[in-house]
C-alpha cells in the first residue's frame, strides 16, 4: 500500500525541514521525502498543495475516562476525537475508575486501545495509590506494562515528602512526573480565577499562587532529586517565571500550556454569564497571565502544547456553576486555537508551533515519534492553515461537548490525520 502526499509544505522541525516536498508512505512507514517523488504503484495521492504536512501531533495530556466514566468518553470516542483534532498519539491520565495505579489497568487501556483506538494511546500511571497523595504506586510494574509517565493529574500531591520520594523513584525508572500543581488549601471551594471578575460574579476565587507555590516547590524538589518533572497546564505569570528560573539553573523541568490558557481570560466567565463550559482547573486566568503564557511559549520556557482534553457529560455541566465538573473538551479545537492565537500573531512560527505539538512532547515521553524521517512510523498530520471555521461543540466527535469556544470564528483545521500509514481522519 503506497500513499503519496503531494505538493504540501512539509514542516518537520526536528529535522530542520520547512519547504514544499512530496512524502511517500509505504504501508506503515515513511518511505521517502523529496522535492518530487515519482514512482509506480501508488494507491492513493493526497493533494496537499497549500497544506502543512507535519509529523503526527502528540497530545501528552488527555482524559479518555476509560475505564469507569465511559458515559463521558471512552477509548473509541476519545481517540476518534483525537484524530479529528489532528492528534495521532495521546497520553491519557490515570484518574479513571478504577484508578490507573497498577499494571492491570494500564494493560487494559493498552489492550482496548489496540482493539478500538484510532490513535496511539500511551497510559500515564498514577503517582500515588488511588491518587490519594499518600503512598507511591507500583511504578515499576506499570512501566513494564507500558506506562510512559506518572501523574496524579486532577489532584496535586500535597505532601512534599511524598513528592520527593515519587520523583526519586520515577527517575530510577527514567520516566517523568507530569505534575498537576495546586495547593488545595489555597484553592479550596474556588470556582474561577481570583480577581476583579470573581469579585463581580461573587464566585470564590483561586489565586494564581495556589498553582505557583507548588510549581516552586516541585522545581526545587526536581533540583534536589535530579528527577525529570513536567509541569502540566502552566497558567500564570508566576508559574512561567518560576519555570524559566528553574531552567536557568539547569533543573530538568519541562512544561506545557493548554490552548484555553493562551486563548481566553477569566472575563469569559462573565461574558458567558456563568456558563459552566468555562469552568476548568486550573481556571481561565487574567489577561496578564495569558500574555505571560504566550511569552513563555515564545521564549521556550513552555516546551509543549497539550490540550488537557477533559470531556464531560451534559449532566455534569448542566448544574450550578460551583457544582459543575472542571474541564474543557479541547482536543478538537486545539489546532485551530494554536494557529489563530499563536501563529497568526507571530507568537510562534509554524515550525515552532509544530515542534511544540510533535518532537517536544515525544522527547519528554521518550517515544519514537514526532519526526518525518524516512523509516519512521507514518504518523502524519496535515493541516489546512487557511480554513475558516466556526466552532460547533454539538458536532464534536468526542462525547464531551463541553467547550467555551462555541461560536468562535477560528482559522486553520486538521485536514488529514494518518496513523501508522492509515488515514484515520479526513476533513
Amino acid at each position, binding site marked *: 500500500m503506497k500513499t503519496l502526499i503531494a505538493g504540501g509544505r512539509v514542516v518537520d522541525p526536528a529535522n530542520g525541514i520547512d519547504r514544499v516536498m512530496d512524502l511517500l508512505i509505504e504501508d506503515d512507514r515513511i518511505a521517502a521525502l523529496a522535492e518530487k517523488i515519482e514512482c509506480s504503484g501508488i494507491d492513493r495521492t493526497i493533494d496537499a498543495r497549500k497544506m502543512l504536512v507535519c509529523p503526527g501531533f502528540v497530545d501528552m495530556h488527555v482524559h479518555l475516562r476509560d475505564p469507569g466514566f465511559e458515559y463521558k468518553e471512552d477509548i473509541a470516542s476519545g481517540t476518534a476525537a483525537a484524530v479529528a483534532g489532528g492528534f495521532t498519539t495521546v497520553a491519557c491520565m490515570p484518574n479513571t475508575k478504577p484508578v490507573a495505579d497498577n499494571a492491570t489497568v494500564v494493560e487494559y487501556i493498552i489492550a482496548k486501545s489496540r482493539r478500538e483506538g484510532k490513535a496511539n494511546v500511551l497510559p500515564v500511571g498514577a503517582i500515588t495509590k488511588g491518587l490519594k497523595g499518600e503512598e507511591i504506586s507500583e511504578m515499576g510494574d506499570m512501566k513494564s506494562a507500558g506506562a510512559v509517565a506518572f501523574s496524579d493529574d486532577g489532584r496535586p500531591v500535597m505532601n512534599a515528602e511524598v513528592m520527593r520520594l515519587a520523583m526519586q523513584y520515577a527517575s530510577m525508572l527514567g520516566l517523568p512526573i507530569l505534575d498537576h500543581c495546586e495547593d488545595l488549601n489555597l484553592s479550596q471551594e474556588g*470556582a474561577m480565577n*481570583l*480577581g*476583579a471578575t*470573581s*469579585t*463581580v*460574579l*461573587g*464566585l*470564590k*476565587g483561586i489565586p494564581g499562587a495556589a498553582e505557583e507555590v507548588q510549581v516552586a516547590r516541585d522545581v526545587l524538589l526536581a533540583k534536589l532529586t535530579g528527577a525529570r518533572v513536567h509541569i502540566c497546564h502552566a497558567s500564570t505569570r508566576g508559574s512561567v517565571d518560576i519555570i524559566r528560573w528553574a531552567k536557568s539553573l539547569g533543573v530538568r523541568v519541562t512544561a506545557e500550556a493548554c490552548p484555553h490558557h493562551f486563548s481566553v481570560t477569566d472575563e469569559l466567565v462573565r461574558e458567558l*454569564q*456563568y456558563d459552566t463550559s468555562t469552568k476548568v482547573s486550573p481556571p481561565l486566568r487574567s489577561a496578564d497571565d495569558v500574555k505571560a503564557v504566550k511569552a513563555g511559549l515564545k521564549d521556550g520556557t513552555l516546551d509543549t502544547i497539550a490540550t488537557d482534553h477533559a470531556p464531560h457529560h451534559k*449532566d455534569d455541566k*448542566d*448544574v*450550578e*456553576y*460551583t*457544582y459543575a465538573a472542571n474541564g474543557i473538551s479541547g482536543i478538537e479545537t486545539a489546532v485551530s486555537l494554536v494557529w489563530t492565537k499563536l501563529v497568526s500573531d507571530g507568537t510562534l512560527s509554524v515550525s515552532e508551533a509544530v515542534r511544540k505539538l510533535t518532537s517536544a512532547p515525544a522527547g519528554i515521553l521518550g517515544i519514537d515519534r514526532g519526526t518525518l524521517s524516512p523509516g519512521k512510523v507514518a504518523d502524519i498530520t496535515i493541516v489546512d492553515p487557511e480554513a475558516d471555521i466556526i466552532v460547533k461543540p454539538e458536532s464534536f466527535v468526542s462525547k464531551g461537548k463541553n467547550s467555551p469556544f462555541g461560536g468562535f470564528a477560528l482559522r486553520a483545521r486538521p485536514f488529514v490525520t494518518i496513523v501508522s500509514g492509515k488515514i484515520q481522519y479526513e476533513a
Partner: protein
Amino acid sequence: MRLAHKDILGLEEMTAGEILLILDTADSMKEILTRTIKKVPTLRGRSICTLFYEASTRTRTSFELAAKYMSADTVSVATSTSSVQKGETLKDTAMNIEAMGIDVVVMRHPVSGSCHFLSRILKASVINAGDGMHEHPTQGLLDLFTMREKKGQIQDLEVAIVGDIYHSRVARSNIWGLTKLGARVRVCGPQTLMPPDIEKLGVKAYTDLDRALDGADVVNVLRLQRERQEKGLFPSAREYAMLFGVTPQRLKAAKQDVLLMHPGPMNRGVEISSAAADAQNSVILEQVTNGVAVRMAILYLLLGGADA
C-alpha cells in the same frame, strides 16, 4: 417605560432608568400598605413560586406578602422538604415547577450565578432573591428606596457599607445601584473579608472604620456570619466588634443626621450595638416595610405592566 428583561438577576445589568422606574412604582405600592384592606386585584390569576435553597425569614415572607397583596397565587418550595432531598437537580425542579403554570420563580440559592442558569432554562420570569456572594437585587432596591425616601435623592450621598464585603451579595447590589444613581460609596471591613480589586467597581475601600464613617450620610451595616470565624477569616467576634462594630460612639464621625441601615438578621453586639440599632436614626424596620413595596413594584412591572 418597561423593564428590559424578563428577569431580575442583578442591579449590575439594570440601567439607572430601570432602577428609578422600580423605585417610583414602589412609591405608589407603599400607599397600598397603609390601607386597612391591603388587597388590589392587579395580579389576579397570576402565580408565583418561591424556591429557596437557603434559609430566609424576611425575603421569603416579603415576596409572598407582596404577591398576596396584589392577589397573585403563591406557592413555596422549601428544599428541605422537597424532591431536592431525593437528589433532583435544580434544572429538573425548575422545569417541573414551570410545567405547573408558574409565571414567576423567586429563587434564593447558595451558588452565585444560579439565577442566570435558571433564567436560561425557564420561560417564566426569574427573580433573584440572593445568589451566593453575587447579588441580592431586591435588597439593593429596597435599600435605595429607603435612602431616597429619607434623604430625598441618591445623587451625591456618601454611603458607607461596613462588614464582610467579600461574601456579601447585599454589598454588591448596593454598590451597583448606588454608583448608577450617583452616590459615592465606601466599603469597609477586615482585609481578609475584602474582595480583590473591589475598587474597580467604583468604590473606595477602607480597613479603618473611623475613616470610612467620616462624613457619611448613610451607613449600611452587613451581617457577619459566625462561621467565617471558624475558617479563620477573623480571630474572634470580640475583636471584630472592637475594630468594626458600629456603635453610637463610632457613628459620631458620620454626619449628624446619618441614616443607619442593616439588611438583617442582626448580630447585636457584634457588627452593630443595640444602642445603635435601636436609635432614632436607625431605619432597619422601615427597610423591611419598604421591602414589601419594592417587591410589589417588581412583580407588577414583570407581570402586570401593559397587559394587566
